[in-house]
């Protein structure tokens, strides 16, 4: 009978960008069980964000640095629900463009991170080089690289100019061939395929039980995508979208979903640029909010959910946010059973774990 041992994996580990702990139960080199511990980065954001609904527009971006614009979009969407305000098509389409730009940066980071976990240092640098171009583009449009601070309740804080929209279009034309070149490595490189195919399997039944979202769910055959509900600019006439779904449920499938969504994001940005017209970019709101509202957006890691209960004053009665990482990270326990110790890092990274989001 083989000896069973418990190995701690993290919270400080070279393959994790943030603190998370996996307690791996090992039979020699094989993982037979895992316990996931989070909470190393808890900051009490739900409490802080309920203190002043106006300042929360900026505070909610600080929950996470990789999907900050999605956080502010979900929050303002929930507040617009409470105020019962209709946002103009121009503001919605600009939000869509910026959300897709942020999806590009996030997916390129996740793919680069996976490449690094598999030992592809050069590929990691190539992904980050392309990501840098998108971050510089966002900097030129919004004035910030990470926290865009473009949203406000009722629309945008400032309008985008014609030159900025042309800049986005031109950058997408330059970047698309580069993304297609990187796609070949993810799909066809023999070592990459051997290290990722059939590894970290998440069956559809497990995916449904863990209620996973985003590329993790779509990599296991769950076609859930909040963009289909038509929030923000995705519901404007003329926008066409179909979710990318793979059935395999392994690390390879999850990476392919992300790679396909990178190409798809370029297409969605072009569609939104074609549909954007002159018009108002802000619908002002008056008074303090009162009532309940929800905001749901498709962040790069999956569905992001905001619930707000306001009582007619500056302080909110309750603010609840459920981030995609909060449901995706526990699913690592289902993927990891039977894997080799060397595969634990690629499996955990394939979920794109964001501990800032998860702990809040």
């Amino acid at each position: 009978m083989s000896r069973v041992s418990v190995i701690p994996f993290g919270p400080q580990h070279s393959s994790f960008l943030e603190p998370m702990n996996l307690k791996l139960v090992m039979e020699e080199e094989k993982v037979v069980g895992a316990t996931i511990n989070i909470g190393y980065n808890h900051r009490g954001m739900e409490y802080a964000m309920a203190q002043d609904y106006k300042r929360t527009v900026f505070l909610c971006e600080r929950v996470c640095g990789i999907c900050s614009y999605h956080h502010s979009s979900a929050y303002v969407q929930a507040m617009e629900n409470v105020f019962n305000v209709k946002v103009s098509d121009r503001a919605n389409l600009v939000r869509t463009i910026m959300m897709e730009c942020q999806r590009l940066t996030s997916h390129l980071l996740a793919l680069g991170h996976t490449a690094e976990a598999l030992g592809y240092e050069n590929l990691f640098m190539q992904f980050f080089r392309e990501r840098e171009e998108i971050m510089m583009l966002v900097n030129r449009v919004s004035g910030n690289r990470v926290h865009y601070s473009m949203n406000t309740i009722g629309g945008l804080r400032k309008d985008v100019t014609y030159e900025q929209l042309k800049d986005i279009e031109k950058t997408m034309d330059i970047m698309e061939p580069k993304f297609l070149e990187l796609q070949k490595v993810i799909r066809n490189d023999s070592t990459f395929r051997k290290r990722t195919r059939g590894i970290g399997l998440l069956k559809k039944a497990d995916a449904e039980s863990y209620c996973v979202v985003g590329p993790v769910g779509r990599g296991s055959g769950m076609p859930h995508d909040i963009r289909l509900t038509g929030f923000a600019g995705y519901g404007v006439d003329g926008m066409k979208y179909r979710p990318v779904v793979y059935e395999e449920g392994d690390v390879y499938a999850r990476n392919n979903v992300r790679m396909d969504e990178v190409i798809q994001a370029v297409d969605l940005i072009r569609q939104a640029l074609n549909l954007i017209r002159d018009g108002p970019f802000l619908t002002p709101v008056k008074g303090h909010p009162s009532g309940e509202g929800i905001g749901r957006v498709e962040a790069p890691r999956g569905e992001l959910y905001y619930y707000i209960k306001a009582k007619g004053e500056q302080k909110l009665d309750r603010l609840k946010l459920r981030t995609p990482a909060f449901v995706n990270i526990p699913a690592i326990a289902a993927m990891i059973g039977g894997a080799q110790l060397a595969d634990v890092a690629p499996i955990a990274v394939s979920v794109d774990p964001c501990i800032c989001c998860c702990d809040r």
Partner: protein
Amino acid sequence: MTDDIKDKELKPVNDIRFKVDRMAFKFPKPRLITIVANDNADGTFELIYAFHYNNQYTEVRYMVKADDELDSLSSHFAASVNMEREIVDMMGLHFKGIEGGMLLMPEKGIVTPLRKPLKPQETPAPSVTVPAPPTQAPLRSSENIPEAKP
């Protein structure tokens, strides 16, 4: 906001489990988005089970008391374990077989940070008619005060 089942009255916990079970056994299987707990500041809590079902948003709501022992949804959804652990940490509610200590250190530091202080109880109006107080003598004013005799 679409509300499938909305129940804002205080009900026995068994009734609640029945309603959530009815949602969990639907086909295709709904996706549990999250569980929201709202403190009403009067010893009761509102629980909102948010589901994504047939590409639509659906809720199951109910009210519970602070000391109720609630059924866990973990037999249907593995995802509910962390959601319930978070509620145990933040609100101090009790779920069967679920322990806290996920986000906060147990028995160290802050406890149930999202609970609100209880509202002051309003004193009920007395049912028995209280007899009117006896008429008091008029207040002494400078006119009524007899002058002191030398």
